């Protein structure tokens, strides 16, 4: 019987099957062992075979009625697609581009949202100052006991000053302290970013609470005449840390806005765009939290001279603002 000759797909498969099998073997190896397991020649064949498989798939869809063949070609194309398009840039290139362009640009695109986060924090600080001036006993309403660690209206001046001073501490304890600070702050930052998805409300709340805590502490030290010392203690790491937190909150607020007011785009697309910025900001902010954690955990504990503390605070502020304002601008 001349069945085979009259079935175009049988001949089609016979002619092309070898190249599919070759691609299948390469894809299988890349997925199991890695791209490095391919020789230079095989690496060159990969995109050629992939495009051939895609063309086989579209031809098969047009001429073949063999369901098993269509399923196989589809699976082959899908796997090869992941291998070819799931690839990344070399790490060093991606790393450099991220810091030189992607991150500062993402931060600049969040100007208005950052302003809102700043205003919410300032509002928290203002409320704390005003309320505590009236009734210092409310301190514990604003600062959780885990944060206060004995600092409060009932603590003595000496106790309060004690916290601000540099101490002799073993190195391993400093490293531990830094890592606690880093992971704690970064988790709060990422949480306030993620919370943006809930229409931004929890993010705004977190910014307010943060402002309340900052306001409560600065009021406490200010009322005892130690205001400058307090800021010299807080700002060297605080500049970086609070900035990173504000950026996370800004990205979170942007996400909330994208969800509630998608504008002319579909809700899904607008959320996706906001998520793109959020991913970039999350990566950058975590690095900032790491820097802040090291300053706070090591520098602050060991260096007590106000002049040094103030210059670190001023220096980091200048550095970050220059970086965010000017890095990665298109000429």
């Amino acid at each position: 019987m001349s069945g085979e000759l009259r079935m175009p797909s049988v001949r089609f498969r016979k002619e092309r099957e070898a190249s599919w099998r070759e691609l299948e073997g390469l894809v299988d190896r890349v997925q199991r062992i890695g791209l490095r397991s391919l020789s230079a020649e095989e690496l060159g064949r990969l995109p050629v075979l992939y495009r051939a498989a895609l063309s086989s798939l579209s031809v098969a869809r047009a001429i073949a009625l063999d369901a098993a063949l269509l399923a196989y070609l589809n699976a082959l194309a899908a796997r090869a697609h992941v291998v070819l398009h799931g690839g990344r840039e070399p790490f060093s290139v991606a790393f450099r581009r991220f810091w030189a362009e992607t991150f500062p640009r993402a931060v600049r695109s969040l100007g208005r949202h950052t302003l809102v986060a700043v205003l919410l924090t300032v509002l928290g600080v203002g409320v704390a100052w005003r309320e505590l001036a009236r009734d210092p006993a409310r301190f514990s309403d604003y600062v959780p006991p885990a944060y206060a660690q004995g600092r409060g209206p009932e603590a003595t001046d000496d106790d309060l000053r004690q916290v601000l001073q540099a101490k002799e501490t073993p190195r391993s304890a400093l490293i531990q302290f830094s890592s606690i600070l880093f992971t704690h702050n970064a988790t709060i930052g990422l949480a306030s970013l993620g919370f943006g998805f809930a229409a931004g409300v929890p993010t705004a709340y977190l910014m307010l609470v943060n402002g309340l805590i900052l306001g409560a502490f600065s009021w406490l030290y200010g009322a005892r005449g130690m205001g400058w010392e307090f800021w010299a203690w807080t700002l060297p790491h605080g500049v970086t840390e609070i900035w990173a937190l504000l950026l996370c909150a800004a990205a979170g607020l942007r996400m909330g806005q994208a969800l509630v007011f998608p504008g002319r785009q579909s809700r899904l697309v607008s959320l996706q765009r906001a998520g793109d910025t959020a991913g970039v900001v999350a990566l950058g902010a975590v690095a900032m939290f790491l820097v802040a954690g090291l300053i706070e955990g090591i520098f602050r504990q060991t260096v007590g001279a106000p002049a040094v503390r103030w210059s670190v605070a001023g220096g980091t502020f200048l550095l970050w603002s220059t970086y965010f304002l000017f890095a990665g601008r298109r000429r």
Partner: protein
Amino acid sequence: MTSLSTVRGLQTPEGVPIQLELASVGDRLVAAMLDIFLMNMLGIFLFILVILTGGRGRLQLASAVLLVVFFVVRDFPIFELRWRGQTPGKRATRIRVISRTGGALTARSAVARNVLRELELFQPLAILTAPAALAAGFPPWLGLVAGLWVVAFAALPLVNRDHLRAGDLVAGTLVVRAPPMLLLDDLGAAPGRSALQFRVDQLDIYGAYELQTLEAVLRLGNTLDNGPALTAVAEQIQKRIGWAPGTERVGPYEFLSTFYAAQRARLEQRLLLGERRERKRVAAAVPGDPPASTGTRK
């Protein structure tokens, strides 16, 4: 192929759409639990390792390592980026994260996807387990809110079409099954067909859908288990095409594989001429073909 409701088209940059099957919610749950388990094992392993190296302040150093490792593994998609959208858990359950737009899975979307887990799971769990540590005077009912919160976000993949969780929505990603690559034999080239001949009008009744259904039946093989199904299908087809058994006596499997080859040859040739018939004609005599049969008209 599984039911169409779980298959999604993905447009490749080359312009050829690929079909992918969505990962089931169960597979994803198992993958996530496996990953969390492995993460804990890794943390404990490193903790013990650092302590075993001995020396002053090792406990502090070990807990520092533990904290940072937990944070990094929990919030950063290291595996997703290195293994092209898979983590150890996802690899074990054969699922994969891909970009919904068909391009590469970028670092930023992988990060965004992961960070959202803070909102969906980790933070509410923290509130649930230790509310007082987060803020002074958190009322106890907040634990209940946090619990409902977790449930609501966990239910999100169950109520949308593409099984997207909040992280997928934000990152523009999709979790799909990594399809097995298995090329079955070509039934059209298989030996063991009889010399039966079919008339053209007998081959113009069925369409591609019936052909592929027949293919599925034939692929179960000429076995004892499959015997009743083969017989039933053969009788059905013989009745429909008005088959008059001639001099040669053939078994149902032989009949069906011969009919399959003839039918596929006929339909594929029509395809070459640009006529695609999806379904069989409902009734031959009705003037004006039913909408189900597109194209072919005599």
